[in-house]
């Protein structure tokens, strides 16, 4: 495969973006779906090339293909290059991003139709940004150096901003878009700082060279630890890890296919990907990997707890996404802790250690995008995301129901679906890394199953509660163009977990001796898989009792534990703390307002009073010039006297 073909994976959606922006917009009717067709064709090309790439990388020695760099800027010794890294991590990510993106683009043809015909939206703006997003995400994945990663990292952030605010005339959407950008940028400050630290210490941005330098000790100590923490802070912003998690639930203001692509499957997992890409650096700092594991585990349970009580179906899924991203971080961090315990932190070992986290990223992308697209389908039928207005949709939307159920089972970690295999690996690694983190992860398994089946029962079972308005009193199944991607993703949500049977995925990522299990002996090799499966089933059972058969009253439990319930439904008051207290009161109303006062009255006040002072003394001096000779004579006399006195004293 020629190296230009690798670039083409990224360039196809770029071309699609340019075509739509330059040609389609001026030369087509407002409601023409041609922008969608262009995007779908371009991304289909990227899918084919990505799968080809995966096959090539699978067959390559050490699962890596060398691609030559392009030199970009040279100032003295300072050189910036653009280049591709084509290893197993890239290959896996390429397939995830292109496949999910393709499914979402096809689905969007149906989903956006309603808004184009009723609200005066256009396909062009939507698909232009979707293409730009896909291109940026692919650029981020193939980048072989931190600077290029940062460039595309910001670009995906921009696309996220534009697409969250797609309905910019809604204040809530405009606010959510701004919030997402600023919160993630706060994390990016750390990422940028880390790049500066690494460059100042090593003179390179190249991830492979940085890994080598970390391995032989040229890069180490405080610089390495701080750089790793800085990179992780960028990852925390993008992957919505505590305490930078607040933007993701609000990001649901964007169109639902956007949430499926950007805010569940791809961009938000870019943080996990970034840590994985730089893991050979992280692995040398026990502090950094411990931090990653701790933040990950805490975020997993923290976000899941808020998912328990939300009534908006997309918000439940959003908290679920944060929680699952926490799982992935936990997997990376715990694997790093294990590496440090075993004491052989080689580049190969560090690269292989990311297998568990990336495997969960891989399976999660499919079932979570499926769930989001399912929620979009439900929204089409009912006009709302509020589950209290849904119910009973199982009968009228059988395809949406079945596929949503498969996604939920997979997410809950039910054997033998994809989520079971990846989650199982994480639990075992967490157990090896740290017992407390393992316990948190186990509790999260129970919560995950509970909140997903709460959604299932509230949305699809019982009686239909009428939807948004009269208009939606007779819900119906969505069109084929929306159902087909659901079915395709459902098939993947069942099967992709089997890639790691016998440890094949881990071997691909570079693990020489993975602990391989097959479809059935997984339960006999260790007690934990069966325990976690039972926990998940218990969660489903409790959800059934509360929301299916209603044997237990959810309201009474809510009333009994009112304090907990309030904390959860108010999202632990984090929005309140950040927006009202820190931003509005402390910064804008306090410090910045103070500086503004200083600027207006202090700094500028001094300027103005100097001016009026000069003016005033000019007035006084003017009065002295009376033109009366007697007065001048008096002044001369006084002056002479003063000089005489001074001379007398000095002598």
């Amino acid at each position: 495969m020629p190296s230009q073909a690798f670039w083409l994976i990224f360039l196809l959606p770029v071309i699609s973006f340019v075509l739509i922006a330059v040609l389609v917009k001026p030369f087509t009717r407002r409601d023409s779906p041609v922008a969608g067709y262009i995007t779908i064709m371009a991304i289909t090309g990227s899918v084919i090339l990505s799968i080809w790439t995966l096959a090539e990388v699978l067959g390559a020695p050490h699962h890596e293909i060398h691609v030559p760099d392009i030199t970009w800027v040279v100032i003295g010794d300072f050189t910036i290059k653009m280049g591709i890294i084509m290893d197993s991590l890239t290959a896996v990510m390429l397939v995830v991003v292109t496949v999910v993106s393709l499914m979402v683009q096809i689905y969007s043809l149906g989903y956006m139709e309603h808004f184009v015909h009723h609200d005066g939206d256009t396909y062009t703006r939507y698909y232009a940004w979707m293409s730009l997003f896909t291109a940026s995400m692919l650029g981020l994945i193939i980048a072989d150096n931190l600077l290029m990663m940062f460039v595309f990292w910001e670009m995906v952030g921009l696309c996220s901003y534009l697409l969250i605010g797609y309905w910019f005339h809604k204040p809530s959407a405009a606010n959510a878009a701004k919030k997402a950008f600023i919160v993630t940028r706060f994390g990016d400050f750390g990422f940028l700082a880390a790049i500066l630290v690494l460059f100042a210490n090593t003179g390179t941005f190249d991830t492979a060279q940085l890994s080598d330098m970390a391995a032989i000790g040229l890069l180490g100590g405080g610089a390495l630890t701080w750089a790793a923490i800085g990179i992780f802070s960028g990852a925390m912003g993008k992957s919505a890890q505590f305490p930078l998690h607040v933007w993701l639930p609000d990001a649901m203001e964007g169109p639902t296919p956007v949430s499926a692509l950007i805010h569940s499957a791809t961009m938000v997992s870019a943080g996990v990907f970034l840590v994985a890409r730089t893991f050979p650096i992280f692995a040398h700092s026990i502090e950094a990997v411990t931090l990653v594991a701790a933040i990950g585990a805490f975020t997993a349970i923290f976000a899941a707890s808020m998912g328990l009580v939300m009534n908006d179906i997309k918000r439940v899924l959003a908290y679920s996404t944060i929680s699952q991203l926490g799982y992935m971080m936990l997997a990376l961090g715990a694997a790093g802790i294990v590496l440090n315990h075993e004491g052989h932190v080689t580049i190969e070992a560090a690269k292989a250690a990311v297998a568990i986290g990336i495997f969960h990223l891989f399976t999660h992308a499919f079932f979570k995008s499926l769930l989001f697209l399912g929620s979009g389908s439900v929204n089409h039928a009912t006009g709302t995301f509020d589950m209290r207005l849904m119910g009973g949709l199982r009968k009228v939307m059988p395809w949406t129901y079945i596929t949503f159920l498969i996604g939920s089972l997979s997410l809950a970690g039910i054997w033998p679906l994809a989520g079971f295999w990846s989650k199982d690996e994480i639990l075992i690694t967490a157990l090896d890394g740290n017992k407390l983190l393992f316990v948190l992860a186990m509790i999260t398994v129970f919560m995950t199953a509970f909140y997903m089946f709460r959604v299932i029962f509230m949305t699809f079972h019982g009686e239909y509660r009428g939807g948004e308005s009269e208009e939606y009193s007779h819900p119906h199944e969505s069109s084929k163009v929306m159902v087909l991607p659901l079915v395709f993703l459902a098939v993947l949500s069942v099967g992709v977990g089997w890639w790691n049977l016998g440890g094949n995925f881990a071997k691909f990522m570079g693990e020489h001796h993975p602990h391989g299990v097959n479809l059935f002996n997984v339960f006999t090799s260790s007690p934990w898989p069966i325990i976690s499966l039972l926990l998940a089933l218990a969660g489903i059972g409790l959800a059934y009792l509360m929301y299916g058969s209603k044997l237990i009253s959810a309201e009474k439990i809510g009333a009994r534990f009112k304090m907990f319930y309030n904390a959860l439904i108010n999202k632990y008051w984090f929005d309140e703390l950040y927006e009202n207290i820190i931003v509005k009161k402390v910064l804008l109303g306090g410090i910045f307002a103070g500086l503004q006062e200083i600027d207006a009255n202090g700094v500028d006040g001094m300027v103005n009073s100097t001016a009026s002072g000069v003016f005033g003394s000019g007035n006084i001096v003017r009065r002295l010039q009376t033109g009366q000779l007697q007065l001048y004579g008096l002044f001369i006399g006084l002056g002479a006297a003063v000089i005489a006195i001074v001379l007398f004293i000095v002598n």
Partner: protein
Amino acid sequence: MDSGYLLAIILLPVAGTILIAFIPGLSERLIRYIAAVSTLVSLILAVVIFAGFDRVIGGIQYEMKASWIEAVNANFHLGVDGLSLPLVLLTAFLGFVVVLISWKIHERVREYFAWLLLLEASILGVFCSLDLLLFFIFWEIEVIPMYFLISIWGTGRREYSSIKYVLYTLFGSAFMLAGILSLYFTTGSLSMVDIANRDGVIVQSIMPVAVIFWLLIIGFAVKLPVFPLHTWLPDAHTDAPTAGSVMLAGALIKMGGYGMIRICVSIFPEVAQQFAPLLLALAVISILYGAAVTLRQTDLKRMIAYSSVSHMGFVLLGVFALGDVSLTGAGLQMVSHGLLTGLLFAMAGLTMHNVEERDLTKLGGLARQMPVIAIVFSIAGLGSLGLPLTSGFAAEFITFTGAFSSTTVAGVEVYTLLAVLGVVLAAGYILWMLQRTFYGPVLEQYNGVKDADKLEKVYMFAFVALILLVGICPFILTDVIKLGVSPIAMLIGG
């Protein structure tokens, strides 16, 4: 070699001024065409010398030298190197664009365009001068047209702002003149090249070199501007007519940064190194303080004006980090800021002209009513907050990297990291400004407001194309800038 080019670039707008001012009975239309043609030809010549600049030998090119005042050994000495050439190009570009921006001016058209062209010529003169006296004269000429532009065609408190501008500038230039005179009496020369080449060797010392350094720095710091000498800028920018703001923010304040590198750092490298920590601290204050105050503004133009205080702080950071990469970054940041803030002011002016409202608390929802302006305004804003693929990111990233890894100033890492925080704040105020202007519910009172017309789209497109070009291919400029700053950085060992 091709010595007439620079003279022609400067004299074309002057010729335009003379034609417009002294030929009686010109129609408004003809005046506009004279202005457009003279600035366009000047721009084309600037592009020609940029393309023709020999990137292998570097140094000063397109030099011309004529004896001028023999008594003080002053020469009419022009020339450009890698540092000044991009600024000449930027000024020529903005000089042409502001004529287009002013197309709808109908009040005292003759005087307006005469002053506007003279303004451009004087700024070009500053960037091309290699003689200190000539430099100073161009520097002073600029004050007059700017004063009239603000006080006659301005808005709001225009008398206050224009007088403040003049007094503040004269205050700065008084220090600068004292500095230049001290340099002359110390070295016996007015040639920037000769003085710099003697590497600070002193003929007769009349005062400590540090004092001369500070006299000059204060003059330049007023212009850049640097905290606490910045308060003229928000007033002048806010009350100036659109073209005046674009020229002021885009080209004029770059004279401060240029002067610091060309005169302060290259003539006094040791002193610069000695005082670098103090100046870096002022840079950080300008960046963070400027950003904080920006966040409190509710006037569209004032907001952009304050953001300039913050963004020019990055120039100061790059200059006094004293490394070759950081100085290149500072040079690039000057050009980038000229394009981005120039476009921001142009778009703000257009919005205010079409909507007749500038209070951010009263604007909103305009993206539906003026989509083209909304898109271009957003691109300028995103560039200004340092989004990759725009010139803003390229300039800031190179400045930060260069500053952070500079080895000539102790503690520069801390200053750089603090400066990076300014980028986070920039995201805050830019996105807030865009949201308040363009997003949210569509307001009925703005139904039927005009979007950009054809002429406006032309210069908007030119701005956007350049912003992206510099952002994606920064080497077009950095390859030139580094030729100018590397010899200066070598003096310090950076």
